[in-house]
């Protein structure tokens, strides 16, 4: 059955899909984060970073766009013995899958009672978890299809890494669900309207932050992409546009992950209303707080690349199973015992 939409609903849907949480937002996020990462890491290393391209006098703001333009002009090289269908499809699937999860994340409440999100479902947490799990399969497929030794090694490492982070993520989500008694992300945010879950569950936050950094293959957990060991891991053979898609899909993932952590632990859009934005629309105020929290998380995740060396795969598995999983279980036990006191204090449930 096709729901019949009114004109304003159609306009709203188009806005959602094309501009805010939809197509333009992850692209803009990727562009700004790539620029910020380069510039910020350069400052930590006492360098200057991108300098020439773009406005605002030698800030290099448009450097990612210039890089992208350069990459799309390049020839696409397919290795001779590659499994061509999978090889060519993998970057496209990777970027689609990575950008899919923003559709299920509520970014702000609407004044009429709904939420500013593309597709509302009461099981959105489970859907996003499922989408995250799909990513390593694309890596393994692409690595195998490239028919290159380094790609295969990187793909196997990606599959191994899945074992390390997937279980802690699931376990630390359990305590969130116990606390809020729902799988609906919007309801989880509303439950935090009086007190954020980061205060109630600091251990869970640390576990999920570390596990998500492993999921994103950010340093110190960029083992599948380890440049010094396996050249560039599973996307070694990609060139031109395909490489650009692979790179962009990583930042789409970063966007989705920071959004998710913001929703789960940092209270989503909650924050004092900002008068100027509130006058235009109450949605903007919520979005502002949401983006601010995302930005702080992004900085923390990016900092990992500047200050930590990469771990070895056995060390990561070791840390995952002997440190993160026990911590997550401890968090569950604490939550179970203290939930009876906390739950009445939470709003919206």
């Amino acid at each position, binding site marked *: 059955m096709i729901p019949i939409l009114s004109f304003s609903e159609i306009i709203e849907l188009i806005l959602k899909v094309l501009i805010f949480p939809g197509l333009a937002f992850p692209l803009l996020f990727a562009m700004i984060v790539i620029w910020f990462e380069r510039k*910020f890491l*350069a*400052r*930590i*290393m*006492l*360098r*200057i970073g991108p*300098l020439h391209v773009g406005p605002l006098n*030698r800030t290099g703001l448009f450097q990612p766009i210039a890089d992208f333009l350069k990459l799309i002009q390049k020839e696409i090289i397919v290795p001779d013995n590659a499994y061509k269908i999978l090889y060519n499809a993998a970057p496209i699937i990777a970027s689609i899958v990575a950008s899919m999860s923003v559709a299920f994340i509520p970014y702000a409440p609407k004044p009429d009672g709904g939420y500013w999100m593309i597709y509302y479902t009461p099981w959105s947490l489970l859907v996003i978890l499922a989408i995250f799990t799909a990513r390593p399969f694309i890596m393994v497929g692409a690595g195998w299809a490239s028919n290159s030794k380094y790609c295969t090694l990187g793909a196997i490492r990606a599959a191994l890494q899945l074992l390390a982070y997937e279980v802690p993520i699931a376990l630390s989500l359990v305590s969130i669900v116990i606390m809020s008694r729902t799988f609906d992300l919007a309801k989880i945010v509303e439950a935090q309207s009086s007190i954020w879950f980061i205060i109630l569950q600091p251990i869970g936050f640390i576990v999920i932050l570390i596990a998500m950094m492993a999921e994103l293959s950010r340093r110190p957990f960029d083992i599948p992409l380890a440049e010094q060991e396996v050249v560039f891991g599973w996307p070694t053979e990609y060139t031109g546009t395909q490489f650009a898609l692979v790179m962009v899909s990583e930042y789409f993932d970063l966007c989705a992950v920071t959004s998710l952590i913001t929703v789960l632990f940092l209270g989503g859009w909650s924050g004092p209303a900002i008068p100027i934005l509130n006058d235009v629309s109450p949605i903007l105020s919520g979005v502002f707080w949401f983006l601010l929290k995302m930005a702080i998380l992004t900085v923390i995740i990016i*900092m990992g690349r*500047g*200050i*930590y060396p990469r771990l070895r795969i056995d060390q990561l598995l070791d840390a995952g199973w002997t440190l993160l999983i026990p911590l997550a279980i401890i968090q569950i036990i604490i939550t179970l015992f203290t939930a009876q006191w906390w739950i009445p204090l939470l709003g919206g449930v």
Partner: protein
Amino acid sequence: MVVDIIRPFFIGLYHAFKRTFTVKHPFVRLKPTERYRGRVMLNIDRCISCRSCTNICPNMALEMVKFEKKLVPQYDAGRCCLCNLCVEVCPSMALSMVHEVEFSEYTRKGLIYPPDRFSQPPKPITEKTLTVKILDKKRGVAHG
């Protein structure tokens, strides 16, 4: 252990607000020190055509050619290793090292300096220049 894990975070953050070491090169240039060996320059009037320089040059970067009825060396910057041996051996002090920093050319031919070009002093650096001393002050290295 936890301290050792968290401390780099703050050190890194602190360094993000320090001054950078890099010089924004095309916009700002660094002035070479006094003794800097950029390339060799010839004083044609002083040259006595003794061939000492062409004999000592390890890479055969110098070659005698005829220029205005006189044998003088011609210089090949592509072969020169800037070792200063020819300057030391020259009996009439006709050769000297000059401060040329950028001598890239589009063709190999451009790196060969015939005597008339060989005896030209390099272009002075016109853009904003920094000396090492000023730079050090900015970096907070040698306070003075």
